[in-house]
């Protein structure tokens, strides 16, 4: 569906995106993660032709983006950062206006249905200045979906939403993927939300790819990280390096020992630590996306890319 090869965006002295390559398959909910300034928005803007790449190639639907811009954009719905719309128009007028721009035949039923989907049917005639941020976000999603695109790109779609709104967007993304077969690219800083919806993930930092793979692979129980703090970490490291746990040892992080193993092996580790006479202060399994994200973005250690 999307194939990005060696994408680079250079601004005078600053490289926003560097040699980035990734692939989004049809039907994926593709989570796009990175810290502020990591290059997520620049990449998304390049996918939407808002920013011209310095070098590299983008193919969407098997077509070169630069050469087939209009044909490709016709099949994409997007919310880029804030869902800004015309504040002096009503929700209905905004959806209708952007639907016409997308080149589709607009009917009253279509607009009303779309507003119904995002829960704004009862406010369709109200002008947008009276809307909360969450309502604007939902209106932005309605605009992105109104022309029934194959690919939906959502940049921070849960910004400004309350917990119920976040859950609604999560369910909407899941239903777009599971029930309607859409491909969704979603960036968010809410890692727990991405974890719940994404089938595949890309994590970038300082414009470079850190890791790409399926959520299942990245959060594989066999890949559980154990953060270990002992009374004497240097001595503990020596003992572990000479034990059966040597292959599980990872580069230390924040002065703590790190071991990678299947989570089922944790009880055995407990026993092993006692047997090795290591005085344990804390032993913490790290298995959420947030832990994984922090692990690879706060160290310079590059994790090998998982198979697509």
């Amino acid at each position: 569906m999307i194939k990005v090869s060696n994408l680079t965006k250079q601004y005078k002295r600053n490289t926003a995106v560097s040699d980035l390559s990734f692939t989004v398959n049809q039907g994926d909910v593709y989570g796009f993660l990175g810290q502020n300034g990591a290059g997520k928005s620049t990449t998304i803007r390049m996918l939407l032709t808002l920013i011209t790449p310095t070098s590299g190639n983008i193919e969407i639907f098997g077509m070169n983006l630069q050469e087939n811009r209009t044909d490709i954009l016709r099949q994409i719905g997007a919310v880029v950062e804030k869902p800004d719309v015309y504040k002096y128009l009503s929700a209905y007028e905004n959806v209708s206006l952007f639907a016409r721009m997308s080149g589709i035949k607009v009917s009253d039923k279509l607009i009303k249905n779309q507003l119904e989907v995002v829960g704004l049917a009862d406010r369709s005639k109200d002008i947008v200045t009276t809307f909360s941020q969450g309502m604007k976000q939902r209106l932005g999603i309605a605009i992105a979906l109104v022309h029934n695109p194959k690919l939906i790109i959502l940049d921070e779609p849960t910004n400004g939403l309350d917990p119920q709104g976040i859950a609604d967007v999560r369910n909407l993304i899941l239903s777009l993927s599971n029930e309607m077969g859409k491909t969704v690219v979603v960036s968010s800083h809410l890692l727990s939300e991405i974890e719940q919806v994404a089938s595949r993930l890309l994590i970038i930092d300082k414009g470079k790819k850190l890791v790409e793979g399926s959520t299942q692979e990245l959060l594989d129980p066999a890949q559980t990280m154990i953060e270990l703090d002992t009374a004497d970490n240097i001595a503990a490291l020596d003992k572990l390096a000479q034990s059966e746990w040597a292959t599980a040892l990872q580069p230390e992080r924040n002065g703590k020992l790190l071991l990678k193993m299947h989570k089922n092996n944790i009880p055995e580790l407990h026993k092993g630590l006692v047997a090795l006479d290591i005085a344990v202060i804390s032993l913490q399994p790290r298995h959420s996306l947030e832990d994984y994200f922090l692990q690879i973005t706060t160290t310079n250690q590059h994790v090998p890319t998982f198979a697509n």
Partner: protein
Amino acid sequence: MFQLLQIELYKIFRRPRTYISFAAITALIGIIQLGLLRDGTAYVEFMMTNVMQTFSFDGKILNGYLVCYVLLQLLLVHVPLLIALVAADMVSGEANMGTLRLLLTKPFSRTEFLLAKFMASAIYTFLLLVWIAFLALFVSMFMFGTDDMVIQKTNYIVQLPVQDVFWRYTGAFCFAFLAMLTVSALGFFLSLFAENSIGPIVTTMSVIIFFTILSTMSIPLFQKIQPFLFTTHMVNWKEFFDPKVNADNAIIIGSIQKPGRIITSSLVLVAHVVGFVVASIVLFRKKDILS
């Protein structure tokens, strides 16, 4: 393209700001007309004191045609601000609202997008001038009646027979449209470089004021560049009211003394419009949308 133009016009005429121009024009013209209706005779006598001492006129000097001429002289200096209010907001306003990035993810080219926007601002300019024409010419004709039009030039006076005036106004308004379209194109061009409309509006007006000063000062250095400044040519709508005269110094009906000046000025203004629009397209096609 036509669809985009329709949408742009819809957006322009749904914004309250658009109607400020129409309301301001209505108020200005209305007040001047009421003032002239009440004390117009005294105003004309004051303006033409020297002429009145030499000539005597039959009929109404203060008629709708003269009132329209007075109004145009006053208004065409200020209308550029009202044009800039909309034209300079066309792209910068979208950037300010945050809608530019959403618009440019829609399936049309940036060239189509800009042309639709420029055509919409041109239509707005045209409608504003039609409104000015309606109020300044037709309402004045209704309020003050019609007669021969007497206007005082720098060194002479011109008396245009009543049947020879209306077509001149038609030409003058067409020319004024071209002049205002140039202002619109300038504001439009400047709106590419800003993320709110204040900067382009102020810059448009500053350019016009600066060029107008250069256009009017008789300094040899400035005189060399004056033919290239659009402000030099914007005031040439007045040429429509300067007819040819025959050997007896009588006006030749349907004539213009220096038609070449109108043609040259029109071409210079068209060149400016095309230049600003082409430059806008070239720059905008390469622009990264970071707003």
